[in-house]
């Protein structure tokens, strides 16, 4: 055991705050497990979309609805926000509070831009008569993409509470852990979006059948 103690003393001081504190590090593990439940949750929505993707019931089809413009904009916004969010973590590890706050606020703004574009896109679909009542395909589409969108929306509010906490308390083991878990969540949503634009939009736009 004394062996182990010796190993431990040195690196712990080098650990980032969120890992240096034993309790906070446990919460990071817990949050990873939560993310896997969310992963399976999205997998179920993807599966639902996959099996219902041809159930148009005489309603509009992807070719009628999807356009590259909003899709590229949404993707660019979310990918960039993922980058800014990772910079916030970088600054948090450098103990630079102003840096954290500015990158975090930029992340929030990009997130708002994403949600705004998506809402606009949905409204335009409804304007074309593509409500989710219309067909199984549209129900599955709106639910999958909408669930992602509401996750992003929740993330924006979460980030806002983090801004307040960081301003108030600075970079402590607890705030840095909260920031770190938020970043995990945000990057995870980015991954989900990558699969949405690949599986849902791009593959549907090829007009071909998925294997």
């Amino acid at each position, binding site marked *: 055991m004394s062996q182990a103690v010796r190993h431990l003393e040195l690196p712990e001081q080098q650990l980032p705050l969120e890992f240096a504190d034993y309790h*906070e590090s446990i919460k990071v593990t817990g949050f990873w497990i939560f993310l896997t439940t969310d992963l399976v949750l999205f997998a179920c929505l993807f599966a639902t979309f996959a099996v219902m993707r041809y159930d148009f019931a005489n309603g509009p089809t992807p070719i009628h609805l999807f356009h590259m413009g909003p899709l590229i904009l949404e993707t660019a916004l979310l990918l960039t926000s993922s980058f800014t969010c990772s910079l916030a973590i970088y600054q948090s590890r450098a103990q630079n509070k102003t840096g954290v706050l500015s990158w975090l606020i930029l992340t929030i703004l990009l997130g708002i831009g994403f949600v705004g574009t998506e809402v606009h896109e949905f409204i335009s679909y409804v304007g074309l008569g593509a409500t989710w009542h219309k067909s199984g395909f549209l129900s599955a589409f709106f639910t999958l993409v909408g669930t992602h969108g509401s996750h992003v929306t929740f993330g924006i509010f979460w980030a806002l509470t983090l801004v307040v906490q960081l301003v108030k308390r600075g970079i402590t083991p607890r705030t840095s852990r909260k920031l770190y878990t938020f970043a995990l969540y945000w990057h995870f949503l980015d991954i989900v979006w990558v699969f949405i634009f690949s599986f849902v939009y*791009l593959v549907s736009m090829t007009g071909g059948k*998925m294997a």
Partner: protein
Amino acid sequence: MADRLYPSHGTGAMNQVELVENEDSIEISSLAPHFAVHKFPWRQVFGYVASLVLTAMAFILVINHVLPVSALVSVVIALAVLQAAVQLGVFMHLRESRGMAWQILVLGLGGFIALCVVAGSIWIMMFKSGVA
């Protein structure tokens, strides 16, 4: 019993903080390099550029429609998987942990199940009966 504790570092001053498992301590020392802070966030910039390039490739392939459909779909999905790997490895600090990196195991299992769910559902719903 006191010899099994190690002095706290003033991070949380919690009693439990001081108690760590064997494996933990060994793992931490091996993981320490991953936590290192660089002068400039090169990793993050690399990740951003890589994700932009991968995304652009997918979009360009679809817009230009150069490949046959089935190949196109597989390429798009492969690009998405690559992109996910970049996000996980670069942005999400997948290998960072205190002690054993349980999240890799859990995430791997989750990925396996997600694959079962999607591929399994598609397979089941094909209704390939042989009564013919």
